[in-house]
């Protein structure tokens, strides 16, 4: 199966400087490119500064396409302001191609990464070839296996998951705070949602929430001061554990969302 791909990062190509769609395959037309630029993160958009940090993103593109993207740090940003460039590799699939993967963006991502896609490359030519994926996922996790990963989760993460699932089913925008392994939670979530819901939702596992990119589900590793208020102003419900440590060291946790 051949799918479209594109790369968004910061370069100086003479006519345009800064974050832009640097590379694309043949069927990425002006309209799809505009949507990819709308969802693509720019400078300092990753939630952590570690050089190996990355975010897996998924979102619908127009009415007939979906995009699965991975955002990570690349080399030094060209403009000499001392920071690292943010690179986003997209795979863009038609709905009928996505159906072969059971509308599971994580299955697409796993297969793509196993085949060498969604990774930092030394070259970013303007014209990219199509990406060749297998017709079916290389590794498909049936629902029972997805639920087994819940055994490794802490109590508060399980409570957060339940709350997040309920909100996602209602169509609300959610930020899950304090999840150690967003991918595990995503696996379970995808398994619980019908195909129609999966097509409408959007996920970012490691990007800073922004009004510019209206992802439905965000994962935020740590709570920050004033975070709930900022997220609420964007229409995002924040679900986090409310940890309290008693004098004897016993930790009580409660998954909560602001009233």
């Amino acid at each position, binding site marked *: 199966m051949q799918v479209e791909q594109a790369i968004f990062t910061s370069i100086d190509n003479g006519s345009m400087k*800064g974050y832009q769609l640097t590379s694309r395959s043949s069927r990425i037309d002006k309209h799809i490119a505009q949507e990819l630029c709308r969802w693509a993160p720019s400078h300092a958009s990753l939630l952590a500064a570690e050089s190996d940090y990355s975010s897996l993103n998924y979102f619908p593109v127009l009415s007939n396409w979906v995009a699965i993207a991975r955002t990570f740090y690349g080399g*030094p940003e060209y403009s000499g302001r001392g920071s690292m460039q943010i690179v986003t590799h997209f795979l863009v699939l038609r709905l009928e191609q996505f159906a072969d993967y059971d509308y599971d963006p994580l299955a697409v991502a796993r297969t793509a990464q196993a085949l060498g896609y969604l990774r930092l490359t030394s070259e970013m030519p303007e014209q990219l070839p199509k990406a060749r994926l297998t017709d079916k996922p290389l590794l498909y996790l049936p629902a029972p296996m997805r639920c087994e990963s819940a055994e490794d989760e802490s109590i508060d993460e399980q409570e957060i998951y339940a709350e997040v699932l309920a909100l996602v089913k209602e169509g609300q925008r959610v930020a899950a705070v304090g999840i150690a392994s967003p991918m595990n939670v995503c696996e379970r979530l995808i398994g619980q949602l019908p195909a129609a819901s999966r097509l409408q939702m959007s996920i970012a596992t490691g990007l800073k929430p922004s009004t*510019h990119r209206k992802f439905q589900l965000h994962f935020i590793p740590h709570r920050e001061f004033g975070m709930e208020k900022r997220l609420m102003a964007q229409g995002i419900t924040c679900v986090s554990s409310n940890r309290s440590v008693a004098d004897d060291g016993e930790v009580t946790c409660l998954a909560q969302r602001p009233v």
Partner: protein
Amino acid sequence: MITTLRHLDYGLTNSELDCVCCGTALPDRDGFCRDCQTPIGLSRAVATRESSQSFVSVLGASGAGKTVFLGLLLDLLSNGSERLKGLAASAFSVALQEQVITALEQRTFPEKTQSEADTWDWLHCQVTTGLKKKMRQVDLIAPDFAGEAIGLEIEQTGLYPAIRHVVSKSAGLLILCDSLKVRDAGSAEDLFALKLASYIAQSQGIDVAAAHKAKELNVKPKHKGPAIAIVFTKCDGCPETREDPEAFATNNTPRLAEFCRQTFHNYAFFSAGVVGSAGVLADRAGRHMQIPFHIEPHGIIEPLEWVMQVCQ
């Protein structure tokens, strides 16, 4: 003691507040306009002010120096003379000034401006010009756009509505061009500035063909249009711009210069710089960082002063 409703949450109900940028009604109390991502706090601050508001757009490619220019502008205006003086009109306006001054004091340049509209800083200051009876006060609003957002908006109109709204209602526009790239990197800067000038003309409703014809016939246009200041930045590394900015523009950005001559009634060329000299540091990861050796502002206030004189 609270004596008037004005003191309670600015005396405005949610239904009364419109976005200062796009005019959309703002039902929310905090956050950003749903249409253009302008901070609601800016709209609230502007709504309570009695002075007239004037938008000034500072535009340019990524890396041209918009953030440093705007941040230092407010800092210099706050220490300005009676001829031109400015004070921050809202708290978040100081954020940009603080970011730039702090970075320069630490001998670095501020980080790259993010493309996401909700991360942009907005300069909102009360500018006073003139003396005594001729004194005029105006609220100046100037957003710090990301350069690539400007480029993307020119290519695909509608991606950043805030840019379109601000440019269309700006009485004055500053086009910043990196003088080093203009001089050394071929015609790319000239062509981008030309695209920018064309976008400004289109957004301001200027009929370019009619403007050209009027110029040929030496006929004054009915509407003078905005004041356009083309500012060549980083002049510490390009002394030619200081000597004669207009000659520099004619020789190095001929397309832009000719377009301005043919299209705009009020335009002028300036040179500006923030540092006296700068160098480059490289670390083991290959990251290059430009280091300002010392701060020596030049030509930061003059473009704004000219714009305000023209717009009077």
